[in-house]
């Protein structure tokens, strides 16, 4: 399995899609941090700082798209045939791809976090704001990194399941931006279990004010279950599918 994951990571590294999405994620985080620090005069409390630095969790949305593009891209470009000729066990093939994208998501978010810390911490120090504890900050940042990895894994499984890149990307965006808000409005208590709610819980993006959110660990566990279930469905569908 390590060999297969290595091959999938090589696949990721050798296409422009990965680098473009990684660059976008890091760039987005960088722009938000720099603009906020440059413009926002209301940045005073520990909560403000945590909210600002948790924007690295935004990269989760892009790694989710990355996963979808990678998972469905195998079918779009026909590379799935080469993949399955080398790895005929389709469960292993899908699992390796999901794990590789998880690692890729972690790497992208880690880069975003590293950059925001390099730029943000000295800037925040110069503004004389009240910094959160190292433990709180580390929890938020590690949660954001984990969120980005799990988002990529879930996206990959969804892409492998749906196979059509456009349909898969549209599906996930409709889910997050249309269905989940609608569901939240109609059904009470469901918000913490939506992708948006779980992502916010992991990355600390909504802070402590939102007491409905699950703890980061539980949120990560539930997201991992979602991703695993999708991956199993994808593997089963792939196993019974003519390529």
């Amino acid at each position, binding site marked *: 399995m390590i*060999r297969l994951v290595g*091959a999938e990571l090589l696949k990721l590294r050798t296409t422009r899609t990965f680098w473009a999405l990684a660059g976008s994620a890091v760039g987005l985080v960088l722009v938000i941090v720099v603009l906020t620090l440059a413009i926002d005069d209301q940045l005073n409390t520990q909560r403000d700082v945590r909210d600002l630095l948790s924007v690295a969790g935004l990269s989760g949305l892009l790694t989710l798209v990355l996963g979808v593009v990678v998972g469905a891209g195998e079918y779009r470009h026909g590379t799935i045939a080469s993949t*399955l000729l080398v790895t*005929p066990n389709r469960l292993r093939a899908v699992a390796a791809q999901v794990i590789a994208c998880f690692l890729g998501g972690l790497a992208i978010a880690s880069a975003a976090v590293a950059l925001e810390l390099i730029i943000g911490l000295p800037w925040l120090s110069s503004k004389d704001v009240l910094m959160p504890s190292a433990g709180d900050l580390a929890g938020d940042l590690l949660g954001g990194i984990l969120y980005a990895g799990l988002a990529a894994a879930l996206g990959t499984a969804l892409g492998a399941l749906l196979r059509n890149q456009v349909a898969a990307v549209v599906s996930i965006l409709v889910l997050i931006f249309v269905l989940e808000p609608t569901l939240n409005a109609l059904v009470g208590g469901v918000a913490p279990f939506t992708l948006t709610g779980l992502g916010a819980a992991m990355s600390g993006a909504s802070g402590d004010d939102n007491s409905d959110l699950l703890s980061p660990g539980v949120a990560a566990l539930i997201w991992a279950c979602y991703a695993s279930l999708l991956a199993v469905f994808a593997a089963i569908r792939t196993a019974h599918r003519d390529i």
Partner: protein
Amino acid sequence: MLEVQDLTKRFGANVAVDGLSFKATPGRVLGFLGPNGAGKTTTLRTLLGLTLPTSGSATVDGRPYRELEDPVRVVGAVLEGPQFHPGRTGRNHLRVLAAAGGLPASRVDEMLRLVELNGAGNRRVKGYSLGMRQRLSLAGALLGDPRALVLDEPANGLDPQGIRWLREFLRAQASEGRTVLVSSHVLAEMAQTVDEVLVISRGRLVAQGTLDELTHGVEAPIWVRSPEAERLRAALAAREGVDAKPPETGGGWLEVRGATLEDVGTTAAENGIPVFELYRPRQSLEQVFLELTAGTEAGR
């Protein structure tokens, strides 16, 4: 050994492969012929585990492809259709396959040299010609130095030098004891490459044998040229079951069916008719193919 046994594959109401059976044995090149839509690609993809059989089996060394533990060292395959990420370089495509198959990275450059793509290895595949993509496919198929090769239309897009290279390459692979199963529409090329031919039509086997067996299996007319063609025609027509008629082009020629060369020669001698030329042309593989699959092209 590659073996297909009573293989049937249906796509909805459409029967792509219908009870097909054959074996491809080590040390020989088996050509796989059939018109468009005859079921060649479906058969090969089923053999490679990419398509699931409706019934019957397709095995490699007695096991379904999906159960092979180290498939890249057992079977190398070239498939029709897109199979490359256009933004990935040829070298990186092979690096990915090598990494997944647990093969040394040095094989990548070896294979690029073998298929004469070493100068283009660092270019993105979207810039490759069809022939270059075919060569890259072949390089991928050979990465694991497999015992068998399954090639679907490998000559597509190759220039004459490339086709010649492919022919010599396939012959060399077979002479080293590998099993080679190759489908192609380039019949003249197949005739120079294969040891045995398998012809399918509408998913069914219509002929299998060596080239000699196939090209002699279909009765070809005898051609005879005489300055007294009309007298010879009458003499031949008097023999039971013999049909002799002049072609539209005339020229003293007769096209004779239902007789042997000896029959025609003897008849001419008995009647004192001079004969300038007498022969039975050997059927080309193309003629045999067209006769065997007459009326079935694209007829699925």
